[in-house]
């Protein structure tokens, strides 16, 4: 493979005084499933629209397949988009919608029909060609939008929150199908989403954005286990932040953590860089174990009290108050046979592994 399919360098976008994209540098590889993740208003959709050609960057360079995209309008770019509202043309039927982009390709009617049939088969809508656009369910509209974009064999498929309008069951099903489709067609997918779970499930790599800036680009596991900043850690899943005092000595960092006591961390546990002095240490709820009679302690232990209990069915979340820690520590436990659910006020011993800790300099 020669170079990235998409390369952005120093991209800025201003709307009047509003700085929507700040200094975006990003390389996206061929055949990669890439997600832009962030809260609403973070600039992820603006970035996607800049790649699509609906917005022109105020500054910086956008290249697609090695070609500078400056001044190239959306209709001349090798990208296709699936819109949040799906944007199915209401005056055309399913087959006409899917064939829309083929108009300028000068295909014979038979070739065109064959291609439309193939595209509909690919998204599981065999025989839906004659359906009116308004007679489709949300999931079917989504598939039509996918077929309509993929039939043009773009180098990059852009997806703007494509699953946010679907109900939970449908969304989960489509997540799997999108992933399968991406492997099947083997092109780059760029997905915009505010749903961290969705990004983790589907992506090869994720860029987390806040306030028009990219905070971190990483693979799902790395992003979850070793978030670069407290903001990223807070956005992805649940994370306890414990105040700590740290001192760096060589490749080791020793920390005195409120509520947990002393621990030694490696530099790999400081993705944002090692730091001394007042820091925060992050610990995910599932990385802590509440010790019952069935559990054996692994690593360090600490004693406290259950301050609050949240029963989710498959899981129970506990807020455990520890001496020396201001806000209780959140701990999650799987509800398995033989493991009782502790009530509020029950004494609890927790066990944690120092390897699960992440150090944040702020």
């Amino acid at each position, binding site marked *: 493979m020669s170079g990235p399919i998409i390369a952005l360098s120093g991209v800025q976008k201003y709307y009047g005084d509003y700085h929507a994209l700040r200094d975006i540098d990003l390389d996206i590889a061929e055949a990669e499933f890439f997600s832009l993740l962030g809260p609403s208003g973070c600039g992820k959709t603006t970035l996607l629209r800049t790649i*699509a050609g*609906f917005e022109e960057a105020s500054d910086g360079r956008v290249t697609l397949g090695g070609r500078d995209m400056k001044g190239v*309008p*959306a*209709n001349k770019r090798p*990208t*296709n*988009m699936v*819109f*949040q*509202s799906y*944007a199915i*043309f*209401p*005056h055309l039927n399913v087959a006409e919608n899917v064939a*829309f*982009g083929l*108009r*300028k390709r000068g295909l014979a009617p038979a070739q065109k029909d064959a291609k439309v049939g193939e595209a509909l088969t690919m998204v599981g809508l065999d025989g839906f060609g004659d359906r*009116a*656009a*308004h*007679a489709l369910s949300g999931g079917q509209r989504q598939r039509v939008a996918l077929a*309509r*974009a993929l039939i*043009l064999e773009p180098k990059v498929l852009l997806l703007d929150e494509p699953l946010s309008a679907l109900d939970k069951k449908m969304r989960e099903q489509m997540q799997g199908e999108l992933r399968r489709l991406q492997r099947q067609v083997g092109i780059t997918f760029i997905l915009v989403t505010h749903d961290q779970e969705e990004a983790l499930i589907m992506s090869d790599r994720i860029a987390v954005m806040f306030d028009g800036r990219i905070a971190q680009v990483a693979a799902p596991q790395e992003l979850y286990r070793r978030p670069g900043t407290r903001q990223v850690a807070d956005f992805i899943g649940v994370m306890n932040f414990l105040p700590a005092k740290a001192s760096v000595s060589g490749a080791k960092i020793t920390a005195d953590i409120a509520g947990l006591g002393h621990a030694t961390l490696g530099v790999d546990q400081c993705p944002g860089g090692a730091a001394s002095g007042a820091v925060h240490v992050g610990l995910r709820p599932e990385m802590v174990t509440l010790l019952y009679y069935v559990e054996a302690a692994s690593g360090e232990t600490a004693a406290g009290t259950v301050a609050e209990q949240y029963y989710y069915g498959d899981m129970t979340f506990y807020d455990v108050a520890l001496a020396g820690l201001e806000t209780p520590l959140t701990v999650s436990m799987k509800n398995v046979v033989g493991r009782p659910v502790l009530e509020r006020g029950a004494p609890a011993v927790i066990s944690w592994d120092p390897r699960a800790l992440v150090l944040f300099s702020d």
Partner: protein
Amino acid sequence: MSLRLYAIGYLIFLYLPILLLPLFAFNDSTIIAFPLDGFTFRWFVELWDTPALHDAVRNSIYIAVLTAIFSTLLGICAARAAAKYEFPLKRSIMGLIMVPLVLPEIIVGVSLLVVVVQLLQWELSTWTVVGAHVLICTPFSIAILNGAFQNMDTSLEEAAQDLGETPFSTFRLVTLPLVMPGIISSLLISFTISLDEFIIAFFLTGAEPTMPVYIWGLLRFPQKLPAVMALGTILVVLSILLLMVAEYYRRRGLARAGLKDKGGFL
């Protein structure tokens, strides 16, 4: 029960005068009064034999067609600009465009007469009437088309461009078909407004009167009154037919777009 009585009374109040039109149009007497005399087609025959009337009707239709086309074209431009672009003073500009909607026509008529005759020193003609009718019909067109353009999801246009269409072909393939019901409504309504507009036409008409101006002229001759009734009857029937056609297309447009029917004319 009382509500039903009220509704019936209201309908009588609305439609009784119009029902009188065909009644006297087929009445074999020059005097418009009860009791009725025999049944006749004589007034319709008289209409047929009045060339001056034919000229007036032809003139009116000519003016109404041109007015409908021009005001709808202007309406499309304004509504599209309002829906798609942000520009300074947008709200004030859109508000100002709507003002002729509420200006008394007599004022508009007199001021236009002053402008055309005194300032510009043009001769009054069919074209001055067309110009004035475009002025009063454009706000109606904009109001109708604004609704059509605002209702359209802008991502549909973006999707078309994303699929390789230029801005122009996008307009032709996506925007135009989707706002077509609005365009047809606008054409029909400005056509109707222009066709029966009297005050402005009266001031600005040249040597060839429009139909309302001609009818007004007829009223000086009482023996012509039944013929006017006959003409009125034809117009009412045509109006109802026109409205039904418009409604048919409106419903078909809604069904194709998969929208729920909310009101409408009929």
